[in-house]
């Protein structure tokens, strides 16, 4: 079995690439850690990417 092995010291796995996972990933990289953001669908973004506008600023969710 030719399994790829990713070995990095100081790394964290985040399961789920919605707004929560993305924010945690951004903060952790800024805090000096390598992050594997594991997302089951083909793109990150989660449900927030499906929303039209967000309250109260009517900002585009994307």
């Amino acid at each position, binding site marked *: *079995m030719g*399994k*790829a*092995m*990713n*070995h*990095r*010291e*100081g*790394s*964290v*796995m*985040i*399961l*789920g*690439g*919605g*707004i*929560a*996972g*993305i*924010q*945690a990933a951004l*903060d*952790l*990289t*800024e*805090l*000096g*850690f*390598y992050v*594997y*953001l*594991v*997302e*089951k*669908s*083909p*793109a*990150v*973004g*989660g*449900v*927030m*990417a*499906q*929303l*039209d*506008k*967000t*309250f*109260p*600023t009517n*900002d*585009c969710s*994307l």
Partner: protein
Amino acid sequence: MLTNADFLALEGTAGNFTATINLRPRYIDADACTACGLCTQYCPKHHVDPYNEGLAITRPIHIDYAQAVPATYYIDPSSCLFLQHETCQICVPVCQSHAINFKQQPEERKLNIGAVILSPGFGKIDPKTLAKFSYGKHPDVVTSFEYERMTTASGPFMGEVKCFSDGRHPKRMAFIQCVGSRDIGCNNGYCSSVCCMYAIKEALVTKEHDPEVDITIYYMDIRTQGKDFDAARERAEAIGVKFVRAKVADVTPWENHLQLTYATLDGQHKFEPFDLVVLSVGLESPKDAQKIADITKIDLNKYDFCATDSFNPLQTSQQGIVVAGAFQGPKDIPESVTQSSAAASLAAASLKAVRGKGVEMKIYPEEQVVAADDEVRIGVFVCHCGINISSVVDCAAVANYAGDMKNVTFYTENLYSCSQDAQEVIKKKIKEHKLNRVVIAACSPRTHEPLFQETLRDAGLNRNLFEMVNIRDQCSWVHAGEPELATIKSKDLVRMAVAKARLIQPLPEQTVPVTAKALVIGAGVAGMTAALNLAEQGFDSVLIEKGDGIGGNLQNLHYTLAGDAVQSHLKTLVDKVKQSKKVDVLCNAELVQTAGFIGNFASVIASGKGKARVEQTVDHGVIIVATGGREHRPDKYLLGKSKKVVTQQELEKQLAGKAKTRAPGSIVMIQCAGSRGDDLNYCSKVCCNHALKNILKVKEINPDSQIVVLYRDMRTYGFAEDAYLEARKMGVVFIPYEVDLKPEVTEKGAKVQVRFFDSIMQEEVTMSPDLVALSVGIVPDDTDTLSKLLKLPVTANKFFLEAHVKLRPVELSVSGVYVCGLAHGPKPVDETIVQAQAAAAKAAIPLVKGYVKVDPIVSSVEQDKCIGCGLCVSLCPYGAIVMQKVDGKRKAETISASCKACGICAAHCPTFAISMGGFTNEQINSQIEAFGATGDR
């Protein structure tokens, strides 16, 4: 980033896990795909589009949306003709970059990691639960998620709200709340916490589309407990959205309409016809919750969400694994974002020893030298924003117009300038046409300028050689009804930007070093948690407390709704703070003065009492504001006048005591006694839960106690709903009152009397309970002083105002200052702890880096021209200008790291000695001149 990935296994222990991940094939080579979309055009097979909630048809080979990250198409194997039947393959020759590869195989990967954050989100309610509302049977009954796609401008209907049955525009719409939540019929006893707010948002958006639509929201309780959320409800009511407290029994087709049957509080059954019905569906635990639990061995609660406790709200039952977002319990975006930052700080603390070992710094290409006398070569990119801009503004005309301008060497249009493929195009064009200024006409620089500036850096250009024009907000949105004029205005704005672009110059990037220490103000649970978390991440802090001792409001609490013993948790926390070598506690302390800026603050702190009071100066890099709040004491309902009227906090204290009569035989509780427009103009969020925890305690001690709760909306959001149900099962009576018909409390001899209108029995009732307990709400502790000292904005309700309510919930507008706890807004202890951990995460970022970057658009003083009048110093709202003696003369000087680039100083300088980076007088004048030079447009 590992997408299309399944989580298969986790072995090892905290600090040294090995995760097994299966990467499913996309059948498209991510490096080769340019996201051109040709494959989707040619693919002959239809595929129901899950991104659009099944409301649109796409093809098996597609991308969910243009801005998707990664910007790579993929093939859904479930409907691809080749992957199902080994035919077709039309896409293979169509793809110009030969990216399609049907030979791709699943790939298993092992990741060696130190910690895990679980953020799998939430699942959706089973359509079976929705059947009684004719969902699936009648096309005009939709879920709120589907409706969200319907109102989206870039969605399948381009934002047009129509009935599916015959395409007519609905005139009457209903929202049904609590579909799949607070519903033991589908085993979801909890409240999903977000549906009331999103229904109000969707109602407001609908009214914006068509003010004539008649909208009714059917609800049990409107739970807009979030910060300033009640204001949205009031706004909705003001523009005519109707709120009806009723339980909807069913929705049935009726002629070409829908008939909604509902029961009101007084027991009446009513019918109402509607054109479109939106089901406000709740959030369920993620579909794979059990699988995740099996792999990670974490415990789930009875609703299959991740089990945690109030004092460790993100810690799962396994060391090294933390949770964030809706998997911890249904929640909205700001709370998810807060939890994620908090989870990051917990993971960072647990892996402190290996911090920085795994990261690679992004290396930018060497910056191309752009000299002042080089030929100006401007590239103009006009964005369609899907149809957000192009449906109103003639983008091609705007681009062509720009093409005729002096110095514009290149111009084009983009479908979505922010998409990954468009970035590549921009980089390519910069190189190809040797562009040295870039103008992008698109959306708001507030959200997208950093992205485009990054693109410039990637292309080897200084990021300030960039000018952005907002033709979405300022043209297509506000002039949606006047496309020609919107196009002319877009041309005007582009002309002005090009004029400015001719004059912009590269600005150097600056960094300043950081003092790796924090000042934490307030030693309640928020301040203590933040300081301890920073200590765990390896940073020192000074924790100042105005009172005699640390502990804050938690000292007044004795138990939680979940049954935690508050005082023992508090003792542990206080002991930890006292023992920590990295937390320096100062009591009877206050901040006297703060100077400096992010990374380099110097604060004068006075501490101690009487003669022992001393002042000291502390150097620190960041500030965490955790000044807390306290119980509001309204001058109402005889509080403070009758011994029989107490606050919930006083009742809690009594119940935690030992007196035999501590649980009275009859109690009337009055909710919102002070909150929600009474004295305080907001919901205090915790009072409903506070009342319930006292109710359950009373019932535990004295099961015969008769309790009546008078409320406006019971806001037992999330899992607290279970307690609400339990109380009702125990016979506690809950009666809603209207805001203009408040209960009255009077004293009659030794007794108190409560008189109220019983909306269930429809009659006035008078009771003489043993005790009246008031849910009084929360007010912030003095925020004025700190607001002035640190120049921090506060809301109308005197809580500190965060930098962005959704996406930057713990940062304040002043760089390097963060907020948590009651100082930010009313919240329960678990949310306070999470927010404190999140503030610690954000505060740790500059401390870890050791430097802060300064935006190059800050002000600078040309000292030859400065006459030393000092006007700028007195006007600067951020204390970012100081007077210096230069050769014996007074001269102004900017502290770059403090400067927010507001421009007040430059606008007021009588000798024009101050200029703003990227906004010089010359540049602005050129824009104004260009505005007038309309020429032939």
